[in-house]
């Protein structure tokens, strides 16, 4: 009899007798459900954030920040440098000849939270002349766009759920007075969770004299290396140039890394607990079925198929439990609204995360089932048959 067939027969037999071992099997199933449930529901937050970042902005765009900046808020591009960058050769031009590059500003505004009246932070960002052209998804859904040069703002649609006074017609406190919200826009990306104003007007109000970053489009797709070299090696400039998707990936990975230490730390500890549960259950299973196993061995089944069957049973139960946990995380959190800092996004339990849940289950069941399977393989046939 070949080994694969032997394994299949024993595994099938094991699963048929499973109903006699319901409670013990439940230890593995529930344990693994806890592990992947916790892992996936916490990862849903960082995954959602990272996806939101990756889908944010026009992928054809470049971002220019001051050298060494890892976040837009900590970057500062002075006006004299911005002028050189905006007019650099290699930057695309609009039909009217003006460069498709937009220096922007970003800051936090203290605004009352709806929930408890405490102060939360709203992201305030700005558009210059080329702003709309550089954000293809941008459109006004209510009211109108702000007029450049006036004390007006437009609000993203996500804000009103969390913050008070974010409807069209409401007023926002700025350093030099109350600015009305004249419209509501939508882009379908992270910008939807921000207030938007005119760059120069907001800078003046904030008494700030440098931009945070410049969003620009390159004249042709293959020009990037040359453009980057020209800007980073220009002695007048102290900037970094990145493709916007690369930048977004880096920024989100940076902030996710911190949470990942916590998430994986917690999950690994839970996983070790599940591993002990798996070990205990399988060890008991081998013990109860010592005679069965010995009979199989006496019938001519090899010790390897027997050992395999133990690990396979553990894996089957683990994967089953893990999928339950993943499903719970998916039904509870997938698509729900989440925030991290001032970013709004949808929590995501992706198919890849289901794969991860299965991988964790396999790892846990292998580690937990290895010793019991070894024991099953090394069972002395005569002793086991004789034992009562």
């Amino acid at each position: 009899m070949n080994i694969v067939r032997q394994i299949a027969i024993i595994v099938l037999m094991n699963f048929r007798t499973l109903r006699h071992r319901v409670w013990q099997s439940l230890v593995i199933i529930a344990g693994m459900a806890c592990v992947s449930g916790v892992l996936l529901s916490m990862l849903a937050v960082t995954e959602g954030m990272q996806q939101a970042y990756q889908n944010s902005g026009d992928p054809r765009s470049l971002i220019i920040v001051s050298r060494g900046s890892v976040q837009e808020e900590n970057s500062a591009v002075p006006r004299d440098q911005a002028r050189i960058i905006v007019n650099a050769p290699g930057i695309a031009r609009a039909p009217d000849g003006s460069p498709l590059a937009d220096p922007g500003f970003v800051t936090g505004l203290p605004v009352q939270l709806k929930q408890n009246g405490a102060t939360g932070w709203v992201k305030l960002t700005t558009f210059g002349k080329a702003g709309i052209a550089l954000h293809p998804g941008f459109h006004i859904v209510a009211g109108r766009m702000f007029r450049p040069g006036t004390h007006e703002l437009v609000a993203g649609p996500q804000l009103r759920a969390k913050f008070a006074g974010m409807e069209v017609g409401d007023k926002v406190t700025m350093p030099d007075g109350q600015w009305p919200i004249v419209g509501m826009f939508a882009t379908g990306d992270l910008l939807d969770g921000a207030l938007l104003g005119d760059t120069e007007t907001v800078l003046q109000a904030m008494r700030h004299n440098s931009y945070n970053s410049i969003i620009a489009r390159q004249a042709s797709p293959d020009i990037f290396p040359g453009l980057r070299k020209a800007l980073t090696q220009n002695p007048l400039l102290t900037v970094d140039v990145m493709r916007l998707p690369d930048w977004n990936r880096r920024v989100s990975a940076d902030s996710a890394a911190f949470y990942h230490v916590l998430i994986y730390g917690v999950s690994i500890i839970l996983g070790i607990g599940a591993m002990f549960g798996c070990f205990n259950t399988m060890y008991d299973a081998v013990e109860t079925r010592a005679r069965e196993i010995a009979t199989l061995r006496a019938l001519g089944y090899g010790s390897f198929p027997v050992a395999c069957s133990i690990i396979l049973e553990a894996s089957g139960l683990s994967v089953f439990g893990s999928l339950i946990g993943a499903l719970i995380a998916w039904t509870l959190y997938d698509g729900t609204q989440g925030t991290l800092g001032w970013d709004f996004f949808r929590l995501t339990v992706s198919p890849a995360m289901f794969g991860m849940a299965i991988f964790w289950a396999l790892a846990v069941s292998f580690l937990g089932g290895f010793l019991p399977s070894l024991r099953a393989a090394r069972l002395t046939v005569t002793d086991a048959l004789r034992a009562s």
Partner: protein
Amino acid sequence: MKYLPLIWAALRRKPIRTGVTFLSVTVAFTLFGLMIGLNATLDYMQRKAHADRIWTLARFETTGLPLSIAHQIGRLPGIKKYSVMTYLNGYVGDPKNRTGVLFIDDEYGNIFPDQVPPEQADLIRHDRSAVVMNRAEAQILHKKVGDRFTIISPQANRADGSKNWPLRIAGIFEDIPQFPGPIIVGNYLFYKDSVPLAEQGKINEVDSLADPEQSPALAERIDKLFANSGNPTRSQTETQIFSQGFGDINAGMLTRKIALIGLLMILLLTANVVARSVRERLTEFATLKTMGFSDTRLLALIVAETAIPCLLGAFCGIILARWLALQLPSVMPPGTGIPPPTMSLAVFFWAGLCACGLILASTILPILRLSRLDIAAALSRYA
């Protein structure tokens, strides 16, 4: 006491099972310790927050505050002391090594003796280009007293046009639980003289000292005073700031949930182990009953048998959590400022309570079964 050998024999009967129970309970309580310990730290920080300290910042981040505001705040009746502080964000060597410096004036050390030890504040008072830092920061930067290093700040230009801030380490002090995370402290006068003339006299924060009862009202009064000025402020007492927690994440709730899930997972395992070990020994329990053991005595035996690995595991788990908590600062990405969990007495207390709950919950079903045991059937092994 005389039943100790009986319990010992029961535990040794299946050493692997007892060992696994012990280890899994240890794991569950390690998680419990870390999670509830984090809560304990947050509670501790909130408790230790000084109700008499008022932090005043610019309402709008980018505008900063002029130095003159500090003197105006200092003149308010009820303010005992005031100081100014400004910070510099930057990195050392590579942009990944983010760090920052708090530049403080002479009075700051007197208001925050718990953040900057007084003798350390003295060190920078007399030497302007010197900084002091805590142990956590020194470890991240791999620096010792006397070392020189340069912070590069993408945002803050110096008067000479460069963005480089050369600093010398005059002292390193031990980490303070109230203000976790790396911290570097420098002299405000050095900062002021380093920046371009237009930036001089701009500060980030005014910290003042008042009576604890008066301070919330004073914080409001400060904000009212400057509400219509060119520099609106945002003032809060330290107690108010520390009671807000970490942004949107309800850390207390989350940590308790995780700890609970860990416990439930282990409960299933221990309950199973107890049930199995009781089922396997039904004949023996029947014998004991025949010999005159009362139900309560059997109950006590089973609870004791379960309690030993569980309580031991809970204790070891907390000890392990304590050890892990001490290693955490070196694992976490630097500069995040999440405080390490502390294993306070309250954590031990809750762990003990939860361990007792675990023991009771996992023994209750087997005990019920045992109390309804039909002795004759059990002895004839048909139970």
